[in-house]
């Protein structure tokens, strides 16, 4: 029934109204003072060269992204494991250690190779 969704529609309306209100209010009372530093995508960190949309990324970001995937997968595996650990007993416990040791080999390799050093 459409009436069941009434709270949702109300919620949407409130959200739109509130954000419009906040944006208008800040527009009215904030100082307007743009300068080049402020208009850059990042105000701090690495200076950018060209547009990101041209595919110009510093290669170190890729290394970080790959390392992130490693740990992301590990976490995804750890959560369901933790839930059923009691049922799996000793085998499950050991099995996870095997998995983590294999991951650690890769991590140690990346670390010693200097993947975590930031060269600017």
């Amino acid at each position, binding site marked *: 029934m459409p009436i069941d969704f009434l709270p949702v529609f109300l919620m949407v309306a409130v959200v739109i109204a509130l954000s419009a209100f906040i944006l208008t209010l800040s527009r009215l009372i904030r100082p307007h003072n743009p300068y080049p530093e402020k208009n850059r995508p990042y105000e701090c960190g690495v200076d950018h060269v060209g547009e990101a949309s041209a595919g110009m990324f510093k290669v170190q970001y890729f290394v970080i992204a790959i390392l992130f995937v490693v740990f992301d997968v590990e976490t995804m595996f750890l959560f369901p494991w933790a839930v059923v650990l009691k049922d799996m007993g000793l*085998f499950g416990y050991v099995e996870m250690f095997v998995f983590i040791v*294999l991951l650690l*080999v890769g991590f*140690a*390799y990346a670390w*010693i*190779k200097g993947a975590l050093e930031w060269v600017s």
Partner: protein
Amino acid sequence: MDLTQITSSVLASGPEIIIILGACVALMLSLVPRPGQGALLAGLSLVMIALAAAMSLTLAQNPQTAYGGMFVNDGFSTFFKMLLYLGTALTILISDRYLGTEDAAKGEYYVLLLFALSGAMIMVSGKDLLIIYVGLELQALSIYVLVGFLTTNTRSNEAALKYVILGAFSSGLLLFGLSLLYGLTGTTQLEAMGEALDSVETSSPLLALATVFLIVGLLFKVGAVPFHMWVPDIYEGAPSPVTGFMSTVGKVAAVAVILRLLIQDLAMLDPIWRGSVEAVAVLTLAAGSFAALVQTNIKRMLAYSSIAHGGFLLLGLLAGGSEGLASVMLYLLIFTVTNLGLFAVIVLLNRGAGQGENIQDFSGLAKSQPGVALMALVFLLSLAGIPPTGGFFAKFYVLVALVDAGFVLLAVFAVLLSAIAAWFYLRVIMLMYMEQNDQPAVFQVSPAIGWALIVTFTGTVLTGVLPAWFLGVSKAAATAGLG
């Protein structure tokens, strides 16, 4: 699974575990650079391969399935694993010198070779489509990196990128076929799938679609025409030992999967693929043989030659039964030793990857290096299929199986086309023995390559002298696989 099942499963996959552990240890060792590291890592890899081979032979005493039927150790998988060990060990022996001259000696090379080997081993032992696919990807990902191992060489980089794109594409096709098969049968396990497929009509369009994608994905991996376009570029650009590795170990594993799927467990798909594979086999033989005639780069020529040999393997598949299976297995054994032997010679002749491997480099070899030239002669004769070398009997048994199965016309085609193929091998022999060379190749045979040459030479000659014994071994393995 209770604890005893788990222990027996771990034991059954012992060879794979040994290889992966070896790769991890080699990876850690490669982080601490020291003089003579290449030799150390190569030695470690060889020891690990020897251990795994010993374990595989022990496990073959009592065939068993493990991991709930997803993984199998039978005569069939053991035979193929032995081929994989042999191919990888020979590759390692010829690699050290090449990496030295190309200034690319990094420990990761051996690690990647071991990971590729373990992937190939999982492929041949997989009894479940997902396991086979995981093995295939592990092998392919390692080989992608190996192909691009000469980081400063643009040909190597180009080859790696092409291989990644085409490999991902073909894996996608294969995976689509597998997912359709899963949808039709509700299982990924090969035996259960075979039973479930018995009740599906072979005329069902969905089953035909699934088979087409499965076959195309697999043919892509062995480089059969019309899915062969990647082979010459990638074989040419890759470092020579890696080309040897791909053309033997990579091909052996892919053919093992094809045999396991198409002849053994999913044999009921036969009427769907037979007609198209017949056409593909003849086209592969023809295109490989004719295109090789005009090549001036030895690796490119061997790439087309390897396509043509792939055609012969498909003929063995078409012959089917334990005869056809055994003939393909024997063919792979002989092709592995012969091809890697020739690649050892190519590594010796290497004048730098930037120069390219011109066929002219072979000219005058008989004068400057008579021993190496003689071995190259035997390898080339074997690839051409001329007695008394192993290559003759490899082709002979495929043809016998083909005629026995009633495909006389195909056999006639194969003989005619291999006569054409013989010409470009003979051209290299002509260059070695008849031509003069102002700048003869100057090289010292290092002990490692010397061993590789001795093993491959002995293998090529022995399979030519005692073909019946080797056929007996592969027949026993083939029957074990069909049983």
